[in-house]
C-alpha cells in the first residue's frame, strides 16, 4: 500500500485534503501525521501542514480541511494556532464552499480543556464553512494515546474498513 503524506503537490487528480495542525508540545503534529496515514488508505491524498506555514487565504480554494489544535492555559489557543486564527478572523473570508472537520487535543486535568478547537469550529461555521462529522477530542489524562484516538476518529470519518 502506498502511503503518501506531507507532500505539497498532488497528482492523479484525486480528492485532496489538507490537515492543518497547531501544537504546543508536538503531540498535535504527531497525531496529524498518523491521521494522514489512515486517510491515505482510502485513496484520498492528504498533506499535513503547520498552521504557522499555511496562508489562510488558501482556505477558500480548499475542498476539505481538517483542523487540529491543542489548548493552552485557560482554554486558549496555543501560540502556533493563534496567529492563524486571528488572520482568518481579520480577513473575514467567505468560507461557504469549504468543508472542514475538527479534532482537539486537551488534558482534563485543566478545567477549560479542549477549549481551543471549539473556538475554531465556531469561527469557521460563522464564516460559512460546513462541518463534516463531530468534533473529535482527545484527553491526555486518559489511557488511550492521541495516535489511537485520532486514527480511530479519522477512520470513522472516512469509513476506512
Amino acid at each position: 500500500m502506498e502511503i503518501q503524506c506531507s507532500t505539497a503537490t498532488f497528482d492523479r487528480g484525486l480528492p485532496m485534503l489538507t490537515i492543518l495542525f497547531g501544537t504546543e508540545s508536538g503531540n498535535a503534529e504527531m497525531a496529524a501525521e498518523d491521521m494522514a496515514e489512515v486517510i491515505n488508505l482510502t485513496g484520498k491524498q492528504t498533506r499535513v501542514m503547520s498552521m504557522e506555514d499555511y496562508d489562510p487565504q488558501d482556505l477558500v480554494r480548499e475542498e476539505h480541511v481538517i483542523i487540529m489544535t491543542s489548548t493552552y492555559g485557560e482554554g486558549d489557543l496555543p501560540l502556533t494556532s493563534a496567529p492563524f486564527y486571528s488572520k482568518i478572523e481579520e480577513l473575514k473570508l467567505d468560507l461557504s464552499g469549504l468543508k472542514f472537520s475538527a479534532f482537539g487535543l486537551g488534558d482534563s486535568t485543566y478545567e477549560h480543556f479542549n477549549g481551543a478547537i471549539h473556538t475554531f469550529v465556531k469561527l469557521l461555521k460563522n464564516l460559512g464553512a460546513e462541518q463534516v462529522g463531530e468534533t473529535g477530542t482527545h484527553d491526555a489524562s486518559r489511557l488511550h494515546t492521541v495516535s489511537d484516538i485520532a486514527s480511530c476518529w479519522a477512520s470513522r470519518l472516512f469509513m476506512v474498513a
Partner: protein
Amino acid sequence: MNGKFLTVAIVGSGPAGCYTAQFLRKELPNAEITIFEKLPVPYGLIRYGIAPDHQGTKNITAQFDRMFIRDGVNFAGNVNIGVSITEQELLDTFDVVVAATGLYKDRLLKIPGDTQKQVIGAGKFLRTLNTYPEWDLEHAQQNISAPHQPLGEHIAIVGNGNVAMDVIRLITKNDSELESSDINDNALKTYSTHQVKQIDVIGRSSISSAKFDISMLREISKLSNVQFLVQGVDADEKCPAYDLFEENTKSRVHSSLTPILVNFIFNASPLSISRVNEKLNLSIQHNQTENIKDIQCDTIITAIGFERENSSEIATYSDVYPVGWANRGPIGTVAENRRDAKAVVMSICSDLSTGKFSTEKPGFYKIKNKLGSDIVDFEQWKKIERYELLSATAYRCRKKIMSISKMLDVARNQPNLNLFKHSA
C-alpha cells in the same frame, strides 16, 4: 565513517535534546543522530521534573519513543560525558555536538541562614517524588545528603511560580486525588505530607503579576482539602487570580476533614532564616510598607528557579550548540523550549550549508566500540519501562526503579522485547 552523512551527538535526553533530534531528523533525514544520557533511562525533566500526577503532560514521550523506534535516532544511556568519555573525545567523534544538559540545581535563597537542612529545593523535592536516583548519584560523588525527614505541620514555600504550584498540589492532594500517578509512596511517607496543616506561599510580585499560570492555581483550588487565604493584596487589584481566590474562599464546600490552609502572601521578600527551638523562623518583609513578619514553620521549600552548577560542562564549549535551558537559562515551558530546539536546528542547518563544518567525523560506532555493553540502548530502556509498569502497585500507573544498579540489571538481564523486528 563514510564522510557522506552528518554525525550528530546530543548530550541530554530531556525535552530539549529530544525535540532537537526530532527537528533534525525532519531537516536532515540522512544524518546519524545519537542522544547521550548520563542515566540508563531517558527523558530527563519529563521523567523527573514534571510532576508525577501530570501524566498527561508526560505523555509527550510517545513522540520521542516513535523517534527512537521508527526514525532511527540512537539512544545511548548510561554514558556520562566527562566521565565515560571526555568532552574532547565527543567533539573529535561527531561533526556536530548539541548540549541539552538542562539546569537542575535549585537556586539558593542567598539570605542569612539558608544552610539549614530543613530548607529543601523544590526541584529536589519534585525529583524525590519522581523517584530520581539522587542518592546513587550523590553517593558516587562522595556527597551524601541528609536523609529525607517529615516536613512537619507548617511549611513555607518561597516563590509562587508553577514549580511552587506543583509542590503545593502534591502535598495537599488526598489519596484518591493521587490515583493513577506514579508518585513515590515511600517519599510521601518519609516526608509525612499528610501531616501538613498550613502552607505559606511567599512571592515577591503582586497578585496581578504573579508567575503561576491561572490553570495551575485553579487545579489546586479544586482539591478537596484546600482552603485558600490571601495576604498582601489591595482590594482594587482585580485580576483573574484575585477572582479565583475570592471564589475559593467564599464558596468552597470542603470535605469533612479540616482543610489545609494555603496562605498566599504577595508583595513580600524573605529576609533571614533562623532556628527557634525545633522550629524555623522565616522573616519576610512587605515590599512597600517594609513591615516585617515572622513565620514559624517546620520546613522551608524554595521554588525560586534553577542555576548552573560549577562543574565543567559541555554546554560551555565554544563549538557546541546549547539548546533549551542550557541555552536560554531556566526560563520557559516545555513548549517554549521546543521552539528553541527548532531554532537551534535551523542554525545547525544554515551552518552546514555555509560550510562551517564538514561531514567527516566517524560518529556513534566509535563510541560503541569503546564502551560496548556499558551503553544502555533504547530497547534496554523499554525493558526497564516494562518492568516498572508491571511493578505498579494499586492506584499507581508505574513504580519507578530508584537504584541505578537495579536499572542496569533489568536492562541487561530481562528478556528482549523485539521492538525493532518490524523496522526496515
